[in-house]
């Protein structure tokens, strides 16, 4: 057993997800990238395997596994198709794990079993057209009216917000501020497709990468949400958000690891076979630098990510510095490794058939989504400024 597979179950999980990714996910990746479409049937197969509720309790249809398992699943799926994996992450981490950790018994019973089976596609809404890294600058409001709340505002860049050009995703955790509440007091609501005043603003088209995951703007125009769908107390959701952002960053970083692994494999293979001036490419120092540095950086990121995952508790915050750090390092590492893979493959690297151009486009998103690298730098420096010595 190793840092990357601390138990035999983790090893088997990796074997299973890798076999599934190679046989079922990889073959469809290029087509869904090209058509900017979400593969719903394949997504539902993840439910049968128990992956959609990987960290959710078994009593709600989940698999009850830990942060390391979540990393393994995201790393292995992203090696085949990061776009598809992003939709998986939004559903299984941002919706299922978030509601499992923060919801009450009734909310868990009502929403989690369906989500774990893939019958309902979920997501989470924080960003807004005018508020990204400045999370607490969000302007979506909620007000209480009798037995329900009324939400107003718009949410942007919502993965799984739409499952086709015209159709909303099924259920979302939406962060909003009670009218008149303090800047750092957010509240969270479960909003379903079909609630009055909840609309698809637009499915966002023409993304650079992650095209197999649907992204949308969602609009709340006097949206009516039953009081039973408020998660936690009014004003208490900032803590939920911080807690869930840690596993979000860690699994996003794991996606970069999957991208990096695939790119190292592809450039290594190519440099062994392709000959230039009478010998294989990998005999040349320039190429050796691309391959060796990529591998070392991939392994460094991997060691950092799994070390943090191994000590992470899903029900408590406390790993912000290092989950930010892992994503800061791995996201840029993944993009750079993909870039080197293109360089090693030359002209072939620049076309879709060799996969690395798609991985490169997908890798870029991870420097932006789920926290920009600048946000990680800001958070980390603030946390570090409170420390005199590192342990």
């Amino acid at each position: 057993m190793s840092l990357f597979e601390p138990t035999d179950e983790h090893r088997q999980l990796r074997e299973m997800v890798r076999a599934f990714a190679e046989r079922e996910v990889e073959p469809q990746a290029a087509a869904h990238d090209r058509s900017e479409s979400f593969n719903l049937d394949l997504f539902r197969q993840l439910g049968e395997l128990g992956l959609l509720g990987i960290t959710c309790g078994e009593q709600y249809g989940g698999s009850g596994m830990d942060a390391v398992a979540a990393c393994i699943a995201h790393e292995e799926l992203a090696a085949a198709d990061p776009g598809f994996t992003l939709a998986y992450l939004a559903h299984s981490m941002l919706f299922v794990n978030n509601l499992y950790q923060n919801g009450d018994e009734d909310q868990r019973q009502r929403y989690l079993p369906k989500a774990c089976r893939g019958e309902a596609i979920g997501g989470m809404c924080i960003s807004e057209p005018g508020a990204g890294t400045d999370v607490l600058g969000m302007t979506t409001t909620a007000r209480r009216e009798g037995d329900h709340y009324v939400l107003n505002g718009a949410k942007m860049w919502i993965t799984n917000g739409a499952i086709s050009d015209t159709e909303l995703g099924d259920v979302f955790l939406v962060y909003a501020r009670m009218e008149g509440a303090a800047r750092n007091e957010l509240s969270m609501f479960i909003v379903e497709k079909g609630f009055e005043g909840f609309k698809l603003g637009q499915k966002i088209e023409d993304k650079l990468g992650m095209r197999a995951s649907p992204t949308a703007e969602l609009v709340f125009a006097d949206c009516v949400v039953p009081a039973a769908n408020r998660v936690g107390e009014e004003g208490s959701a900032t803590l939920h958000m911080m807690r869930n952002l840690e596993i979000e960053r860690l699994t996003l970083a794991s996606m970069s690891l999957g991208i990096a692994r695939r790119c190292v494999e592809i450039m290594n293979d190519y440099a062994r076979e392709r000959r230039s001036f009478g010998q294989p490419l990998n005999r040349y120092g320039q190429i050796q630098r691309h391959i060796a540095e990529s591998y070392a950086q991939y392994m460094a990121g991997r060691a950092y990510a799994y070390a943090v995952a191994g000590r992470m508790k899903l029900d408590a915050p406390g790993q912000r510095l290092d989950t930010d750090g892992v994503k800061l390092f791995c996201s840029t590492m993944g993009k750079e490794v993909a870039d080197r893979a293109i360089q090693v493959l030359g002209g072939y690297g620049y076309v879709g058939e060799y996969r690395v151009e798609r991985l490169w486009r997908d890798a870029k998103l991870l420097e932006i989504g789920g926290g920009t690298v600048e946000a990680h730098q800001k958070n980390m420096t603030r946390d570090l400024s409170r420390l005199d010595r590192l342990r």
Partner: protein
Amino acid sequence: MKILVPVKRVADPDNANKVKVSDDGTKVTSDGLEWKMNPFDEWSLEAALRLTEDVSKKGMKGDDGKPLDRIGEVVLVSIGPKDAVQTIRQGLAMGAERGILVEAEDSSLDSHVVAQVLAAVAQKENPDIVFLGKQSADGDSNVAGTKLAEMLGWPLVNYATSIRTEPGSDTLTVTRALDGGVQTIEVKMPCVLTSTDRILHPESVKNGVTPEDHKYPESEGGRYASLKGIMAAKKKPLEETTLEALGVTPKRTEEYVKFALPPAREGKATVVESVDELVEKLHSEAKVL
């Protein structure tokens, strides 16, 4: 119904080009390759699981907590070093009930010894079917199943492409692919079967319990172990035994003398002008007609 499924671990067959011959030619090395379940065994395991399940009760549990979709028993057996338990665990995670590891050094085995061991296990377990892969992806001998049937004195159907039976019946209706067509055989249990990849076809296995119109998903291999399966596999019984304990005195019939890679292909291509010229060259130069 009780089915015994032998599973062998082999060096990852998807990377078979990385298998090397040692410098002295005494052995084939597969250093750096992962161990995988022999894909031919995986197909037979999948068929065995289909024969012993009721898909309409998938995910349902009885009052005793036991899964209601399992209506028979699949017992895995592997012969090899301790590490081979990982291959058994994989099969348990896919859904088999229990496993048996017969400890032995890989180098001490040949098809005959494997058949001897499987015969001893079959006599102890009394299964209705021993369901093997038709061959292993490393040695590719395609012998063990046939030898096993001979040793047990049980009927044998090699290369099964479909199986049909009814609950309580002691007979299987098995089709097998031959060069000239398809043969349909009625076979009494206990029997020995081997399969081809067509056994994975969505409608190849009908056990009379799973709804007649059920279609399994198209797949190149056996089912994936779900996370539930992986967790449940931890608690499933896994017995470890030895050749001595089974009363087997191994009698090797094969000795490998020397291994060598095939000569590199010359890659010479000849362009012909007409079909007549092609036929002429195939006859006079290639001497294949």
